[in-house]
């Protein structure tokens, strides 16, 4: 077992274990902490997949900004731990959870047993061509940030602008939602 494989297993265990601990932890603050562990594990997996820029982004945006926002709201609302024994709301939720687990297991078995190239697990990782900004329309996978930016600014120009507009809309919506409602008093003009 090579070093990279060992790293994969470590970080896979970190992300899955962190997720499981997040789901089953009683206190919201500890759940947020386990979520950070899981997100950092996923960022390390991004590094193993040679997407270094996205790994940095994952740590900055998810483990940094989003989880700090979560912790901030937990502190603001002063949420205590859930009462034990009341996690599963009713039998219907339990049944759907059970069906979910069955579907997941069947997917895993299907993925493991199918005889196509996915099932045997012999897909090789293609070697990378690092020359960014090739002339053809398909963007080749590259570890460079510059090829990432090239893709964003050429092929995905419209989605970039739309997502910017969406962020603006979300910002205005959040400001309006969290604004203190002022009682309109008709005191005459």
């Amino acid at each position, binding site marked *: 077992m090579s070093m990279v494989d060992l790293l994969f297993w470590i970080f896979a265990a970190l992300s899955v274990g962190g997720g499981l601990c997040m789901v089953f932890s009683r206190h919201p603050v500890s759940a947020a902490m386990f*979520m950070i562990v899981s997100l950092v594990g996923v960022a390390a997996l991004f590094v193993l997949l040679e997407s270094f820029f996205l790994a940095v982004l994952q740590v900055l945006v998810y483990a940094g900004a989003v989880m700090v926002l979560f912790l901030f709201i937990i502190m603001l609302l002063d949420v205590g731990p859930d009462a034990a024994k009341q996690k599963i709301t009713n039998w219907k939720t339990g049944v759907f959870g059970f069906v979910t687990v069955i579907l997941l297991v069947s997917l895993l078995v299907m993925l493991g047993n199918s005889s196509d190239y996915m099932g045997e697990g012999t897909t090789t990782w293609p070697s990378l061509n690092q020359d960014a900004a090739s002339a053809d329309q398909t963007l080749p996978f590259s570890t460079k940030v510059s090829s990432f930016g090239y893709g964003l600014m050429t092929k995905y120009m419209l989605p970039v602008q739309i997502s910017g507009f969406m962020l603006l809309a979300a910002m205005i919506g959040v400001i309006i939602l969290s604004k203190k409602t002022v009682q309109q008093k008709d005191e005459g003009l």
Partner: protein
Amino acid sequence: MLTVTPQHFLILSFLLVGIGFFGLLIRRNVLLMLMSLELMLNGINVALLTFARVGNNLDGGIFVFFIMTVAAAEVAVGLALLVALYKKRQSVLSDDMALLKN
């Protein structure tokens, strides 16, 4: 260099999405439900990046970028809605937000 196969990464992404969905179903705290949503999005990101790497195509990576953007906006709006609800109901449990049920 990497002898773990893409299958390993795909199974991991299935596991992350499954754990997130399970958490979304069994938790009553809306904060935890939002965190489970984030976990599901992370699993999808892992799958997208795996296929991008195997297919030698950067489109998957760029899509992960957009998913991160949407997830950040979603969390901001969701938490603002939660705070607004908390002001009305003094609770973050989904059972207490069942006004339209029945």
